[in-house]
């Protein structure tokens, strides 16, 4: 598994207390539709990404296409890293 995806998955398992759910959560499946994150959870994800990958996130970038699955988030992180 690529490093970014693996870090995201570990973060979800460590912080969202849902190891059983995660076993069934595909890399393209929606965090929102699967009830993985709530209003606190999305803030936790934002701060995890900023902290782990050293990128600055603007509110306008916190969109479903960037933050709603492991693959979306990994792709977003790669795009941000390229422009750094």
């Amino acid at each position, binding site marked *: 598994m690529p490093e970014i995806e693996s870090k995201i998955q570990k973060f979800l398992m460590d912080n969202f207390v849902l190891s059983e759910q995660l076993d069934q959560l595909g890399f393209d499946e929606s965090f929102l539709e699967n009830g993985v994150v709530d*209003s606190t959870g*999305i803030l936790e994800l934002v701060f995890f990404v900023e902290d782990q990958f050293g990128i600055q996130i603007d*509110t*306008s970038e*916190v*969109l479903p296409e960037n933050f709603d699955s492991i693959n979306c988030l990994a792709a977003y992180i790669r795009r941000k890293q390229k422009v750094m």
Partner: protein
Amino acid sequence: MSYLADSMQVPVEREVSRITQWMKQYVFHEFKRRGGVVGVSGGIDSAVVLALSVHAFGQNRVTALFMPEKDSSPESQLMAGEVVSRFGVNFIVNEITPALTALGCYDHLMAAIRETFPDYDPDHDKVKLVLPENLLEKPGLNVFSLALLREGQPEQRKILSPRAYLGIVAASNMKQRTRMLNLYFHAEKLNYAVIGTSNRNEHDQGFFVKYGDGGADLQPIRHLLKSQIYQLAKHLDVPQSIIGRTPTTDTYSAGSTQEEFYFRVPFDLLDKIWLGMDRGMCTAEIAKDLDLSEEQVDRVLADLLQKKRTTEYLRTIPLSLEPIPPES
């Protein structure tokens, strides 16, 4: 008139009668209480609930309680006073700033705010929690930011850290819970019930404090959308100054509207989209009826469902492993 605008209309006279009969039945006959206490905020929901309580119990059996604190808008007390004098009920003003100070509410709040704005000065700066702007205009997840307003400077906004967000929410919620405590004090002293003011938007979307404003014996307008409450307000002769006032949270010093703090869509449209969903209409039908794009409607529907799903905990009463057997 569009189908959804037409469907939003409530037969107000019949609805007021239905609600007040139910209130009388529960308060007098089931709960064996002699009247009701209503926490008034100066907003439309509590004004309507006060009016309904007067219709149900009589003006001599209703007490209105206004509980300002130092971050409350001065306008709220004027509005609360106006609605209370319109309905002629017993009025108690209970300033809760000393209680909140003693509980450490403002110190906790300041510490949490300073995690985001280290130079925050509570004597001069004002703050509010906000979600990204109008969901109809722009997509975006519900990521809370803190806005700081300082005289002579443009507004600053920063995404909150999870710790700061939880700290601000926990401290702010002490305000609503202190109000609930006072409502029950007066209710018990008078042998009255506490009549809650939550509407359907607040209840279903989780815009209330568990055991705060969500703590009550009856919630007579919980089945009604905000747009329908406006219809009742007109019928019940709620002062026009209250009907015309923008709904606010009146919780944070900067003052924020309920739309910018939580709902992200004007009530008028939000309620119609919601009603369309209730009626089993598809996205295309709702969009056509309201002259919106399907993408806009989908965005609002997704947000409604997401908020409902993630706030289920707030609506859950204390659980028991096994049900209590009924009386034999």
